[in-house]
């Protein structure tokens, strides 16, 4: 997801003293704001009164519980809170007017303006968006999906309330996808892999039928073909839908129900698309235990034994980077060239706006490091958040904790990579 940050790139450093947190018997769930200016954590006192601590100050409200603490891209601090037994959402300490028996799956869209949660009232389930609950409730609601623009919201819903062991009715299907309160008019054994189009106008998902075959549904309309199995679909553009499907020749890439790549693989999943260039990257297995990346139909020459995580496109769509695990060791690969990095754990690679630099945080010997273009920055931290590139790609924002201090630093990249 492309984040929109308003970051001060001139003020090179800032610290927040964390020592005062020792006054609390319990504190957990650290989060740093995207601009690096704030660090927050959930704190509890001896009476189990719970609240949020931000840069040394706490919110006025106290709660029974605080969950899902996170910053939105516009640097607002959000979480779910339980107060007087009921649950709601808090934004910078201000509570929504609506409260529920339970809320979970707190999420926001690309710019953070649309905030939504799954909600439970009595034994009924639904969604609340920006403090406006859907009017329609369901027997169950699982997972929440917000389109990038925030114009549409979806959740998997259960439309029948058959009792446990009622397998003959289960076989008829009882799950669907609700988009903005309205469930598709078809029921399935299961619905999974929900994905919105880039403009948020269309939505696709994998579905399983009563006869145990699979297909892809787009806005509730099912592809003509059924398959032995399918994985999560993605939109190639605002109309066309891609999905890995299992056919008699193995796993294949299909588009709108027809073969897109004619050949099959031992496995293909984790598709990613660069919508502007309609480029496709995915993870394939060419044989058992041989995982690699495929870009527009061309597999990389290197393969990896354990894991290849979802590929990441550079902003211009010309490069692809990925985190891998090979024979128990984590690594980063950019355009089929593995880094020489020797660390215990790495996180997802992040491209600079021009695509020339790749930054990643890494852990070695229980210390966290910033790595750019395979060069490890000398300074270590007890914890680091993901680095953020400046718009000109010349600087990187580093947010980390060392000892009892939170650090916000703006570093010149040339000093790291030389």
């Amino acid at each position: 997801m492309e984040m929109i940050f308003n970051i001060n790139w001139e003020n090179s450093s800032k610290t927040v003293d964390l020592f005062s947190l020792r006054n609390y018997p319990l504190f957990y769930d650290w989060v740093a704001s995207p601009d690096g200016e704030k660090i927050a954590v959930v704190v509890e006192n001896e009476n189990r009164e719970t609240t949020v601590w931000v840069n040394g100050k706490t919110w006025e409200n106290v709660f029974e519980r605080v969950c899902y603490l996170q910053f939105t891209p516009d640097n607002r601090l959000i979480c779910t809170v339980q107060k007087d037994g009921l649950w709601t959402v808090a934004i910078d300490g201000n509570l929504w007017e609506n409260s529920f028996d339970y809320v979970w799956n707190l999420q926001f869209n690309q710019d953070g303006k649309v905030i939504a949660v799954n909600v439970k009232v009595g034994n009924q389930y639904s969604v609340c968006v920006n403090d406006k609950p859907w009017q329609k409730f369901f027997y169950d609601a699982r997972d929440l999906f917000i389109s990038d623009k925030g114009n549409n919201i979806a959740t998997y819903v259960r439309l029948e309330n058959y009792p446990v062991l009622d397998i003959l009715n289960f076989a008829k299907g009882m799950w669907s996808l609700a988009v903005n309160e309205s469930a598709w008019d078809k029921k399935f054994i299961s619905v999974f892999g929900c994905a919105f189009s880039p403009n948020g106008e269309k939505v696709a998902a994998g579905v399983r039928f009563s006869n145990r075959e699979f297909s892809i549904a787009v806005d509730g309309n099912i592809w003509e073909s059924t398959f032995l199995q399918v994985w999560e679909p993605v939109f190639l553009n605002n109309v066309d839908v891609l999905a890995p499907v299992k056919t008699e020749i193995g796993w294949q890439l299909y588009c709108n129900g027809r073969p897109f790549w004619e050949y099959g693989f031992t496995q293909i999943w984790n598709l990613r698309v660069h919508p502007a260039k309609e480029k496709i990257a995915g993870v394939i297995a060419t044989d058992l235990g041989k995982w690699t990346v495929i870009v527009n139909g061309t597999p990389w020459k290197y393969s990896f034994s354990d894991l290849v995580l979802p590929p990441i496109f550079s902003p211009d769509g010309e490069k692809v980077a990925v985190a891998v695990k090979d024979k128990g060791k984590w690594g980063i690969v950019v355009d089929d060239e593995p880094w020489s990095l020797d660390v215990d754990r790495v996180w997802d690679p992040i491209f600079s706006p021009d695509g020339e630099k790749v930054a990643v945080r890494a852990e070695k010997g229980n210390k966290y490091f910033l790595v750019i273009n395979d060069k490890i920055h000398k300074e270590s931290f007890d914890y680091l958040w993901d680095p953020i590139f400046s718009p000109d790609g010349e600087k990187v924002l580093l947010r980390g904790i060392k000892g009892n201090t939170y650090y916000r630093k703006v570093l010149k990249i040339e000093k790291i990579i030389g």
Partner: protein
Amino acid sequence: MKEFKREIITDIGIDRVLDFLDEKRIKRAIDRVLSKESAARLKAFVQTCVHCGLCSETCHHYLSHDGDPTYAPAAKVKMTIGDILEKDGNVTKEDIKRYARIAFTECNLCRRCTMFCPFGIDIGYLISLVRRICGILGVAPQFIQDQVYSHMSCYNMLWLKQDEWLDTIQWIEDELRYEIKNARIPIGKKDSDILLLIHGLEAKYMTPLLMNMLKIMLVSGVDFTLPDIDGWDYTNKSIYMHDFETMTMVTKRHYEIATKLRVKRIVITE
């Protein structure tokens, strides 16, 4: 061979589901498994068995039925996959019912017989093909099917809803605070060392067990987390129907959570 005689037992997962099937659909399922999914070892195994009977004494079903030869592993293969091959897949609903009974209730796929077979015939594999055929047809004991349907849509075996999972862990945390000062059970904590997955029963009916395990995790001081989304249940009941599609979905989910939270390892209870 002694006559195949069994006490009549009804199970809607087998008897009622068969009402909805026809022999054409049965043939299609058999062809899919035997010609597209089975390895060459199927033919080799079936042709290699010399009916020496060494497998019989290794089977607890055979022993616990006073040496009834119809419970011998070689006989069970002959009465199921052997029968299917002999009839070239043109079998009746009554045949499927018999196969299901044998494959689901008279063989645990423990493979002890394979250890004693002079040719190393994997009898468990052969019986598992029968479970796979029955599974594709939706013919399996009701309790197994119920849990598999739950896995298909909820990724846990007992239809636990997402809020019920989270609320259960929060309740356990409250209870633990009577014993452990400031006990805190992390849920969905990124970058932990360990992702702890639990048995579905422990979250729904056996919470004291789960509480004890969480107590151990807390006191040991390890950096762990439970998932905050579907995929917290490591059980995969679809294996009993050889429902590979659900099996892969559930297992894939576990690895997706582990990599999303970027833990170093997955630990399971029990």
